[in-house]
């Protein structure tokens, strides 16, 4: 069923789900929603399964026209959403009428908003996922970002979604300073003590080269023992790669599956949504945690998701 016409796509609007797994061994990144917290909550708000295909809207500029009555929810970055020019509530579900124009005109905070639609956005699955990997033209809407005039389809609305609102205490605040928790490794032994200490004690700034593949940071240079080259190996989500120039790059969902530069640490899973909402100019510092602490954080995160679910459907 036709659900939206793209009036303006904005700088980068793509269809994403939770990503594709099993294909990294063939060089295919997972892709998927970069902020999976806002993405999952958006779907819960409209009565979808957590991983239903939605729109990831990067920075302001996107404008859509509803082609039928449909329930939606907006979560993630504050892009001053409006419906027919009137402010639209976010982090809650609401009904759009046929002909309504939904706009995301201005950036207030964060970087990426998610638009969930009851029944999910419908596109053919490629390698079992709806996610768009634009660099290789794989998945989503013809493998590419949305363009003016595109018509989006949704699956039939099976759930009778009622209006649901995210409890305000669970709505994240997107600041301009982010502390990212990291686990050292796999190549922390290829850095000097001074290098590790620079990494953990300095403030870095998100450069303009920051996208779904990775965020290049600017700041103090991290010292290697003997050089930045390694025998190429896999790259986990959130890995912090330090090439020869000593400046860290946080690698994200569209990262290459393998690489030949030293990786000093890996961002813990629960902090990926926070880097996802960072934008050029934001400040970042790194805090070391261990594996056990990271798993405790992850358990809390998933418990919170369960709590949200039970409160939405109470």
């Amino acid at each position, binding site marked *: 069923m036709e659900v939206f016409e793209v009036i303006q796509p904005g700088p980068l609007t793509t269809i994403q789900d939770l990503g594709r797994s099993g294909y990294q061994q063939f060089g295919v990144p997972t892709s998927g929603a970069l902020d999976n917290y806002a993405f999952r909550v958006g779907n819960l708000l409209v009565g979808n399964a957590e991983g239903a295909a939605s729109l990831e809207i990067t920075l302001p500029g996107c404008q859509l026209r509803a082609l039928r009555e449909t329930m939606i929810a907006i979560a993630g970055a504050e892009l001053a959403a409006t419906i027919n020019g009137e402010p639209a509530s976010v982090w809650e579900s609401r009904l759009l009428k046929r002909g309504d124009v939904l706009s995301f005109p201005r950036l207030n905070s964060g970087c990426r908003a998610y638009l969930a639609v009851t029944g999910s956005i419908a596109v053919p699955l490629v390698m079992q996922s709806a996610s768009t990997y634009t660099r*290789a033209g794989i998945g989503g809407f013809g493998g590419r970002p949305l363009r003016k005039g595109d018509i989006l389809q949704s699956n039939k609305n099976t759930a009778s979604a009622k209006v649901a609102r995210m409890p305000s205490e669970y709505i994240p605040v997107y600041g301009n300073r982010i502390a990212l928790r990291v686990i050292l490794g796999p190549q922390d032994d290829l850095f000097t003590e001074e290098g590790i200490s620079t990494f953990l004690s300095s403030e870095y700034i998100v450069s303009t080269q920051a996208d779904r593949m990775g965020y290049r940071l600017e700041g103090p240079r991290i010292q290697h023992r003997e050089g930045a080259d390694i025998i190429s190996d896999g790259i986990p989500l959130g890995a912090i790669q330090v090439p020869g120039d000593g400046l860290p790059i946080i690698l994200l969902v569209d990262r*290459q599956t393998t690489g030949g530069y030293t990786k000093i640490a890996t961002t813990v899973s629960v902090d990926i949504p926070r880097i996802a909402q960072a934008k050029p100019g934001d400040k970042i510092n790194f805090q070391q945690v261990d*594996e056990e602490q990271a798993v405790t954080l992850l358990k809390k995160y998933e418990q919170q998701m369960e709590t949200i679910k039970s409160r939405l459907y109470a």
Partner: protein
Amino acid sequence: MIYEEPRFLSGGDRAIFIELGDSIDPDVNQRVRNLQFAIEKAGIPGVVESVPAYRSLLVYFEPLHISAPEFREAIGDLLQSLTSSELPKRRLIEIPVTYGGEFGPDLELVASHSNLSAAGVVRIHSSARYLIYMIGFMPGFPYLGGMSPDIATPRKTTPRLKIPAGSVGIAGNQTGIYPAESPGGWQIIGRTPLELFHPTREPPSILQAGDYLTFAGVTPDEFDTIKEAVRSGTYRLREKSIE
């Protein structure tokens, strides 16, 4: 060289590296492949996927289903029994290539750099058996080992903006194939009509880490015929099992 004890390296809270040796070496890489196979076969709960590389396997797992220590223990047991597990045979895949001319604009340059004739470069390039150490860089891109040093040629000083899909090139002592159109600095000596990667095919990549390939020279006419067969879905990949 293969380590006596594998090294477990942190890949954060959802992934772990198992490093099996200290060099780019067919024996080490064979062990990586065996380990990946053994993990798949063991069906360890909570394992999501794994990515083989030259000398290590990166395994993604679901930490709320299996803890990292539990996972390391399960892998330790597998490593013990690795030699005895029934491993699938390796494949040797033939990649047809049209060398030179518009298909390989840098063939003459590689020839003069190597003090060989163009035919000599082709003979050397198409007579070796190459190990696919891993797939990475872009979907379906093979990292190959086994090229003769006699035809090693440095990259172009200025990369080309567009290299057609299927281009076969040389960069330093490596050879490779571009699965998709891409910018790049490799010296392009030929092109294959095969589609190394196709997103809607299962598996999407013809090549897999641990397999071998050879290049077989074909004429431009044969190139067109094969390309048409690939397009219509009637092309049969030439492959065989090897020990």
